[in-house]
């Protein structure tokens, strides 16, 4: 659980775009509509609302695609991570839940746009499970973890790190 008053931070996979939000994480939900699916290449897009007054881009800025006249979607032009859903003129912005540094700090409360939900959605959670495994690589999972170029799950003073 998140400490009261602690800002939520997050950003894209490569770290070129970072954000911070203060205040309440509003209406955390999963949107199954076909536009959110295709925008994120996923079965649904998990979104969290923030007051624009309490939200700031702390490194870089997203690029935007107007998926319709009133709505634009923000993403990192360097690595593609879907970051934001913005209704132009609204006092609030929605950010993608999975781009939070601490995704578990917020729990979705509702599913929207369920007319677009994939038919096997409810069965996904019962599928057999396996941990990360890259035994196909010469050094196994260590080959990935030791060369991971993903931004860490916290703010950084400088990125990329100077030793790269």
């Amino acid at each position: 659980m998140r400490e009261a008053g602690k800002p939520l931070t997050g950003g894209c996979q490569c770290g070129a775009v970072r954000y911070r939000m203060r205040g309440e994480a509003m209406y955390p939900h999963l949107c199954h509509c076909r536009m959110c699916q295709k925008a994120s290449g996923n079965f649904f897009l998990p979104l969290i609302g923030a007051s624009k007054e309490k939200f700031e881009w702390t490194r870089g800025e997203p690029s935007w695609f107007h998926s319709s006249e009133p709505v634009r979607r923000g993403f990192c032009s360097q690595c593609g991570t879907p970051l934001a859903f913005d209704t132009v003129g609204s006092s609030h912005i929605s950010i993608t839940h999975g781009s939070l540094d601490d995704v578990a700090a917020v729990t979705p409360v509702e599913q929207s746009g369920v007319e677009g939900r994939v038919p096997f959605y409810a069965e996904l959670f019962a599928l057999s499970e396996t941990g990360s495994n890259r035994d196909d690589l010469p050094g196994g999972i260590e080959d990935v973890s030791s060369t991971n170029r993903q931004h860490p799950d916290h703010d950084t003073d400088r990125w990329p790190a100077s030793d790269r």
Partner: protein
Amino acid sequence: MVQVHSGGCQCGAVRFRVEGPLGEASICHCRMCQKAFGGLYAPLVSVPDAAKLAWTRGRLKHFQSSNHAARGFCADCGTPLTYEAPDGIALAIGAFDDPAAAPPVIQFGVEAKLPFTDRMAEIPERVTEDDMEAAPFLATLVSFQHPDHDTDTWPPVEPRANDI
């Protein structure tokens, strides 16, 4: 008859087609897939050697997320489209024109599965029409998303009255 699956990004700048049977479909909960997709997990289907993948419009941009893996996306709208590793390429299922065509059979990276993910089929649900009152613009919304089928030209040369 050869199976054919098509798909692409939200804006339609990048389109793909797979001829032949798709490989194993999965959802991956690992932290790298979460952040790359801005989601709770990434839904991916592998393209086996027996199938033929063609990029029928535009080109991917890539982010090398580790020394072994790269992730392809649309530079114009951000849609995550591929996970590419030494053992092959996988496509984002949500980017398929028919995402129901690739039901996942296994979950990977469950060491990072979020504590609430297994309960996400139980939370309350709404259809988009339920939101009309709170978001009246939905009633007149004109989508700029590429349709869920291949197109000869895109964006359309003439506005189509039927879209409104």
